[in-house]
């Protein structure tokens, strides 16, 4: 049976790839429950590291910083990105394709270049490095993602719907409130979730523009690693990983449900 043989081979190959991708993460998660301080030796199951994490004042401070920066930059970039996407989608103008292309650029530019350029910008404009500079930086790289997710949602929307609303006595504001916004909402939420995830996870750009009182979780982990890898870091990383995965799954679910299906047959 060459066919089943081939199927088995394909399955094994797929599993190998998945293992390659996820084994390191799984090991990290596993060792976060290790009783021993030394990573290489398994000495028993414990959740102590998680407990000590939540008693560590500096971890909590970094967590608060991360959440504050992520929340504020998510809200601002979602509002900016959504309105931007609507403008880009609504109006016809010259060089539309080129301008849409420019939106992808911040995503493709090496982060280290982004970080460095922002650092130069902040020092030129005398903006002190701290939470404000951090939030501004996070907004810059989050906006593109929001625009792209909202835009793709709007593109799947029938153009005549807003005309239909206007024809049915809805003022422009009511059209936005009852038709455009609800239909764009899954895209907006997905965009916000992606923005939040990017902000929480960002290291490289934050490394350049954070100040002494604005250490975020990734920056704190980096500082801890310099003093050796402890199970506490494993625990913290595992929590961050879980949060990210959950947010991304949520964003994906929201994006994948456009209400545009072909009508059933008569």
């Amino acid at each position, binding site marked *: 049976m060459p066919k089943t043989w081939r199927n088995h081979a394909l399955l094994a190959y797929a599993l190998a790839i998945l293992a390659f991708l996820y084994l390191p993460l799984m090991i990290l998660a596993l060792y976060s429950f290790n009783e021993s301080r030394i990573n290489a030796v398994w000495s028993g199951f414990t959740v102590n590291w998680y407990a000590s994490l939540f008693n560590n004042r500096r971890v909590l401070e970094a967590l608060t910083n991360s959440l504050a920066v992520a929340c504020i930059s998510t809200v601002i970039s979602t509002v900016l990105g959504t309105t931007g996407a609507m403008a880009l989608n609504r109006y016809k103008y010259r060089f539309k394709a080129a301008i849409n292309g420019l939106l992808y650029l911040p995503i493709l530019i090496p982060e280290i270049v982004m970080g460095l350029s922002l650092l130069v910008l902040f020092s030129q404009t005398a903006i002190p490095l701290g939470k404000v500079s951090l939030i501004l930086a996070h907004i810059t790289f989050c906006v593109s993602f929001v625009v792209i997710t909202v835009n793709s949602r709007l593109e799947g929307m*029938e153009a005549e719907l807003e005309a239909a*609303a206007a*024809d049915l*006595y*809805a*003022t422009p504001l009511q059209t936005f409130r009852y038709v455009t916004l609800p*239909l764009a909402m899954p895209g907006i939420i997905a965009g916000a979730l992606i923005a939040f995830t990017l902000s929480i996870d960002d290291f490289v750009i934050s490394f350049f523009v954070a100040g002494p009182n604005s250490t975020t979780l990734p920056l704190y982990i980096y500082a801890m690693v310099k003093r050796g890898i402890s199970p506490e870091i494993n625990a913290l990383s595992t929590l961050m990983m879980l949060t990210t995965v959950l947010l991304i799954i949520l964003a994906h679910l929201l994006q994948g449900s456009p*209400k545009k299906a072909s009508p059933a047959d008569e």
Partner: protein
Amino acid sequence: MEAMIRLEGISKRFGDQVIIPPTDLTVNEGEFLTLLGPSGCGKTTLLRMIAGLETPSSGKIFLADKEVTDLPPYQRDVNMVFQHYALFPHMTVEENIRFGLKMKKVDLQEQDKRVEQVLAMTRLQELRHRYPKQMSGGQQQRVAIARALVNNPKVVLLDEPLGALDYQLRKNLQLELADLQYDLGITFVYVTHDREEALTMSDRIIVMNKGLIEQDGRPGEIYHRPGNEFVAKFIGETNFFDLGDGLTTLLRPEKLNLCPEEGDDGAHPAPHFFGTITDVVFYGTIDKVFVDLDGSKQEVVAYQYFDDARKWRMDERVGIWWYPQDEVKLSK
């Protein structure tokens, strides 16, 4: 009859391109008026200018004697049935229908009453909680009509509302829609490129081409007395003859009669032309007979009913005759 819509010198340009040159048009109250023409003739643009979805480049629009030229669509007492229905996908049938009443802030009891009426009228009661994507094209089309009618508008504007449906369903809905309009007495302005649809449903037809009104008349007039070559060709098959009187003579294929060249009983007007049959095509109720006229390259088509006394065959020699009153004369 009262004028419900009056267009005075309405025109539309996009940049240098003239879509509709200045045009006057009156739609009477309670009338089923059809704008008929090939795609790109400006009929949809004209409809959207009445709805307020396009701004005219010049001219004035009056609705029930009130000027509405500069009013936005949400302040005009007209409702539109869109070509692809444009139903709100995130609302149920009932919510879609209620939308206009909700925006106009009609009181809730009145809203309920009118929604129920319209649901019953369009036989949508059972589907009220469905979402548009859960329904067939025909059902969605009924929701689109219900969503317009529920507002008791002065005028309903319909933009090829049956275009996306299959032939059989379209024929049923044509009659349903015409009946509905007749019963309600609401003015309908209907846009289509389908001549059969226009002929069966309308009180009056405006034939348009390249932004111009080619003819304005009742369906019978448009069909039997086309005002020019374009209308004659667009509304059905036509034969054009030059009878040497300086005019073009038009005859519909069903007005042409055939007789044998030899041994004819002569109990009808004398044949104008003789020719040879090149093809006979079976069309169900009729045979289409194609005849090459003697002494010219012209081919004419005549419809012969199936129950006619004689069956015609290829290569037969025939005379072509007609009654003088069936001739339509056009200046060249």
